[in-house]
Structures are given as C-alpha cells and as structure tokens.
C-alpha cells in the first residue's frame, strides 16, 4: 500500500504554473527520489505534500492523499495532527532550520509533547537516546545548547533526530545536504537512510545530484519545468536513460579526461613555507589567539599546469588560493612569482604581479558588480596597464565575450543572465588580460550539473588555448577528474598529499584522501 499518492498535482505562482499535472506514489518503506534542475518545481511539490506552500504559491489542482486520506478534506487541526507523526520534513538549510532562540532540547521535545502522551522525563529520555543515535556526544548536556553552538553537519543531524523522533511514516527531505561538505553530506545521508529503515519510514528525497540518487534511492522521478519526464527504478533509469533530458543529466556527470605530459619548466609561482593567520578578535584586556588557516604550505605551480586543490570544508583551500594572489597577507614564508619574491612587494611590482594573475570566484552572482553592464565588467581589467583607448577595450571585451559564448549579451546586467552565463562572464573577465596564472575558487560548485559540465569544458578549452597555469580549488573530486593535471589535498591548513591526478585518485596514500574519495558520489557506472 502506498503512503503517499499524488495525482495530477498543479501548483501555480500567480498566473504561471510551476508544477503541471504531476502524479506519483511513494510506497511504504520506499525511497523515491525527485530529481531535476533548479527551478523545476521539486520544492514546490514537497511543500504541497506537507501542506505548507509558501505565500505566492497555491495548489491549483490535483489530489494529494496520505495513507489513502485526501489532504484537502482535512481540517487544519487534523492536518496538524498528521504533520510530525505522519509526515516529517527535513529542510535544505541546516543554518536556518532550527530556531536560533530555543535550546535544541526544547525544539526536539516540542513534537513529542504535541503528538505523544509522554511525561517530561520520558520525553527527555527519548531525546537523549535519539541524539545519541545520530552521533551527538554528551547528549544530556547538549540538550541545553543553542543551535549556533553546533556545526552545520551536527545541526542537520539534530534536525533529522527531531523529525525521526516522531517516527514519521513519510520523511520528506528537500535537498537535505547540499549545504554541507562532501564528507558530512555522506554521513548525514547514510544516517537518514538507516533511521528510515529502522523505523520503516518511506522517504521522498529531493535532489539534483544524480550520485545521491544512484546510491540512496529505490525509484526516481525526473522533473523538468514542473512536469515529470521519466520515472522508474533508480539504477536502470540512470544506467539507461530513455528521455533526452535524463540523458543530458546523466551525460553531465564528470568523466576523467586524458592525462597530459607537460614540458618541464621553472615554476611559475611558488609558495615556500607559506602561512596565513586570521587575527584573533581584539578585546580590551586580551586578544584571542590568531587563527592559523594555512600552516607552512609549500606548493609550486608550473606554467600551463592545472593543479586541483581539494580538501574538506574549512581546510584552508580558499585561504591558500587568495594568499597566493596576495589578496590575503602571508603571516610567514614567502611567495615567488617567476623567481621574484613578491611576498611583500608594493607599488609597481605588486601591480605587475596583479596584472599577471587572476581569480574566478565560486559565486557567479556575488562576484559580478550587479550595477555594471557585462561588457564593462569584462572591459574593466583592460584599464590597467593604462594606455588602451576605451573603444579598443570595448572591442576586446566583445571579442572575449564571443569567445565564452556570450556574443551579443554585452549590454545586459548580470541579473539578467543565468548562473552559468554569469560564471562565463567571470571567466571572461579573468582571462581578457591573458593572465599567466588563474586561481579558480570553487568556480563551478554553485552550478547545476549540466551547466557545470559546460563551464568546465569552457575553462578547459581556454586553458588549453591560452596556456595559463591554474590553481583549481574544489571539494568536488568529479571536477578534479575532468580537469586537473596534479592534485593537492589539504587538511586543517596543511598539505597532506600531493601528486599527479591519476596517482592520487586511484591510489590515495593518505587516509583523509581516501575518506574524501569514498564520500564523493559517483555513478556506479563510471566508478
């Protein structure tokens, strides 16, 4: 018997339909994955199921039945009674889905108090047991803590604990781990599956990550623009997609590119024993110890080489990347560019260094000034070195835009572009001055799988064509496979492993690298 039945669901945002004629069922104990690109209506569907559509969206048709019971017929009170023990929901953003002003004990107990007739003591016991179950140590004391005292992964686990405490028959998880780093992501998802299995809950898992689907889902439903395109058992569906859209999604999964032999040359840029520290918070009486984000890292990058810098969240990747561009001051060690020490250079020397180096940031939205036209953004680097006349700058910018596939879009503002297009603009800006060295800090992490594929291709092509060296910061090993010549693994501010790509990926020497590799989700077919 199915726990959830959705028939001909329609959801409208004003006059626009964002979900059209969607039907599916979730059987007892089953995990159904809802897959699709951003904006395809996955969250809207999930919210409709639990009856909590945000203002602006409304269900304009169709029927949703939980355990055979139509939801639209229920009174608000009955519906409320159903939420929690019937349907539980885990949200995407661990940072905002717990009430910051309430102790987590109180938040966890709340559901129990509402839906079960337990005394305070047994509620507490249940909470403690559950926290223990999700791997929070010292649960008794931690019940008194506030959410901000936990890391993102812990919060997501607490969230999960508080939902599973009520043993819901259906667990709705809307991208429950996208905000977490690879290692934590894997942990939380496995935990979720395990708990669901123990309690016999069905799961409606929403994701745009095919790796997740392959690993955790029984069945999958692929959505595009509010409609179902394809549905079926997860493994066969991914192995042999029938619909072109699904095929495109699958094709977008990263594949290892050929390894290259690069000519020996003197290092282009070299970090020697580089350390970076963030100053501690100042006070009147004492100053907190500085935070050592990068500690004695030595790394050299040769002309034309693509080095991938991987590591867990907070391991110091971004810090190292920025320090190598002198966007952050080094607290120790030195930085050499073409053999020249540039660790502390200023004025013209610094400008020369700046002119030769560039950076592409993770967030395609925030790295572009929203008040400048795309053409001006791309032309801006040409201000320096001074001397190029403005029409010439504009012409070059147009040419560069055409090269990244944005010909004719120069008059637009960033907000009028898609995420992928924006990232192309950022790449064009970085490359227009023909830099010798580019740092790409998670340059594709924020993009949809299909778009990511295209942007990686663009970067790779440009790299091959222009021959700049590149430090590619990422936590996504798939990307590494596609583009890197060499891999550097960081953990807590130090380099723990370094070597040619194939060697590091196929025969990891360090435990941490192995853990990273295990956690990264790759389709069985390509693994």
């Amino acid at each position, binding site marked *: 018997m199915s726990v959830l039945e959705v028939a001909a669901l329609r959801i409208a945002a004003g006059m626009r339909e964002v979900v059209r004629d969607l039907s599916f069922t979730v059987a007892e104990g089953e995990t159904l994955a809802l897959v699709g690109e951003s904006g395809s209506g996955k969250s809207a569907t999930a919210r409709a199921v639990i009856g909590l559509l945000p203002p602006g969206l409304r269900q304009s048709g169709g029927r949703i039945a939980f355990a055979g019971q139509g939801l639209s017929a229920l009174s608000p009170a009955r519906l409320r009674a159903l939420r929690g023990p019937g349907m539980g929901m885990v949200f995407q953003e661990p940072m905002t889905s717990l009430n910051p002003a309430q102790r987590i004990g109180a938040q966890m107990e709340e559901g129990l108090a509402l839906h079960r007739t337990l005394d305070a003591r047994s509620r507490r016991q249940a909470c403690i047991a559950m926290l223990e179950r999700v791997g929070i140590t010292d649960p008794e004391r931690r019940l008194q803590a506030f959410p901000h005292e936990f890391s993102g992964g812990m919060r997501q686990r607490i969230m999960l604990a508080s939902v599973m405490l009520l043993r819901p028959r259906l667990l709705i998880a809307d991208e429950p781990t996208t905000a977490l780093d690879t290692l934590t992501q894997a942990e939380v998802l496995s935990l979720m599956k395990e708990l669901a299995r123990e309690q016999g809950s069905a799961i409606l898992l929403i994701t745009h990550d095919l790796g997740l689907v392959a690993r955790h889902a029984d069945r999958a439903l692929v959505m595009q623009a509010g409609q179902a395109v394809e549905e079926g058992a997860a493994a066969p569906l991914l192995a042999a997609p029938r619909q072109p859209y699904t095929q495109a999604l699958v094709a977008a999964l990263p594949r290892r590119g050929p390894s290259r032999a690069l000519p020996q040359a003197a290092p282009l840029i070299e970090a020697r024993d580089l350390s970076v520290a963030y100053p501690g918070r100042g006070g009147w009486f004492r100053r907190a110890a500085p935070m050592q984000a990068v500690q004695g890292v030595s790394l050299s990058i040769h002309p034309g080489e693509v080095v991938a810098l991987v590591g867990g969240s907070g391991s110091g990747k971004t810090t190292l990347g920025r320090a190598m*561009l002198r966007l952050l001051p080094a607290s120790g060690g030195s930085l050499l560019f073409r053999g020249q020490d540039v660790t502390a250079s200023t004025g013209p020397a610094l400008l020369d260094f700046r*002119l030769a*180096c560039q*950076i592409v940031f993770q967030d395609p939205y925030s*790295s*572009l000034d929203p*008040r400048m036209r795309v053409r001006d953004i791309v032309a801006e680097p040409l*201000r*320096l070195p001074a001397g190029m006349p403005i029409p010439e700058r504009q012409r070059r910018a147009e040419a560069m835009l055409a090269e990244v596939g944005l010909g004719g879009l120069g008059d637009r503002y960033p907000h009028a572009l898609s995420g992928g297009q924006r990232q192309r603009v*950022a790449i064009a800006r970085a490359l227009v001055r023909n830099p010798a060295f580019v740092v790409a800090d998670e340059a594709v992490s924020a993009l949809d799988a299909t778009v990511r594929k295209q942007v990686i291709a663009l970067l790779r092509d440009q790299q091959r064509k222009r021959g700049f060296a590149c430090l590619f910061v990422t936590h996504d090993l798939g990307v590494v496979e596609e583009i890197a010549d060499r891999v550097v693994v960081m953990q807590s501010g130090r380099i723990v492993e370094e070597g040619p790509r194939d060697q590091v990926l196929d025969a990891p020497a360090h435990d941490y690298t192995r853990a990273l590799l295990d956690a990264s989700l790759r389709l069985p077919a390509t693994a």
Partner: protein
Amino acid sequence: MRLRLNLVIGGTLMGAVLALAVLALAWTPYDPTRTNLRRRLRPPSADYWLGTDEFGRDVASRLMAGAVTSLGVAAATVLVALAIGIAIGLASGFLRGWVDRVLGAVNDTLLAFPGILLALGLLAVIGPSRSGIVLALGLAYAPTVARVVRGSVLSIREREFVEASRALGNSEAYTLLRHVLPHTAAPVTVLATSLFGWVILSESALSFLGLGVPPPAATWGNMLASARPFMQEAPLLSIAPGALIAICLLGANLLGDALRDLLDPRDGA
C-alpha cells in the same frame, strides 16, 4: 498591491506639497511677510482663505512660502547629512581598523548628543540662519547616515566582486568609488526619504523651542510655534501647518516604504 498604493499615495502627497512649493516660487495670494495690523487673526474668508495670523499676514500665502522654506531646508539638510554621513560611513566601513574605531567613537559621541544641543550650539556659533539650521541638523543626522552606510559597506565589501576588483590590480580608491559606493545607493535612498521627513519634523521642533529658521521667513515649524498661543481662538493657525507637516511626513514615509520594497533585492532580482 501595497507597494503601488504606497507609491501612489506617498507620491501624490509629496507631489502636492512640492507643487505647492513650486507654485509659491512664482505666485502667492499675498506677500507672505506683509503685515497688516488691522487684520490680525481673521477667520477664513473669501479674501483670506485660511485667515490671517497675529500680524495680519495671510496664512495661505505663508503656508505656501513655508513649503518652499521647509522643503528647501529639508532637502539641503538631507544633502549635508548624506555627504558627511556617506564619507564617514564609507571610510570607516571600507578602511576598518583604527579609522573605523576612531570614527566610531566620534559617531557614538555625536549620537549621544541630544540633537537640540548640537543644533543650538552650532546655530549660536554660526548665527541663526537657514544655512545654520541646515548645517546643524545635517551634522545631527550624519551619524545615522554613517551607520547605515557603514553597515551596507561592510556587507558589500564581503561580496566577491570587490575582491575581484582588487585582484585586477585596481586601487582601493577606485574600488571604493566604482564598486562600493553605488551599492550604498539603495539603502541610502530609502534612508534619505525618511530623513527628509525627520528633518522637517526636527526643524519644526527646533522652531517650536525658538531655535529654528528665523522669522519672519515662514516655515511650518515657526508658524506652528507662533500659532501656539492662539491655539484656542484661532485653532486653524496651528492645525494647518501641523497638518502640512504630517502630510509631508506621511508622504515621505510612504515613499520610503515603497522605495524599500522596490529596492529589496529579494523582489528586485
């Protein structure tokens, strides 16, 4: 729906007051400072639409002239407050470190001052005049502007395009002016609108205490102040300028709300 209503009502109110001021520049029924001691405190009539004040001056004409003064003073004050506040806010937000700390201390000092004292002190030193009021109130409100600007600079400077500009080798000054400053426009516009209302209010409050734009020039504030003794026998004298102040404030507040909604990035993008 609410947004448009705010815009329409706020715009209409402000527009009407503005139109009144523009008209007053060209024409008023009578000379607003012309006294006529034989016609003091007349009730409204066909000749004097809103009656006359204690010097026999035409109230309607004075209200119109008052619109010019009040709006002019408010606009100039807002500009002064913005100029000072933006400079301080930009500097302390962007440079941080000791600059921020020093400016923060000065700012806190100014905020801890009752505006009246600041205004009085400056007015007495500069001499009571429109420019005195403008400078005094401008200084009094600059810290508020500085705080808002600093706040938005702090959030903008964390955005990556600022860092990108640096990475391009652009100087700090260029980055500040080209990439940071324009982004304070939205919060500052909203603030400026509210500020406009507050300044009109403050100017009238200062006039009420006898420190405002010096008479016989008409401002709503000093009209209200001089009407106060006649509250009972000529209530219209106090009601009319008070109502105009309220209308102006309401307009500014509604416009401010509308602008806030318009410029909210959540709905804008």
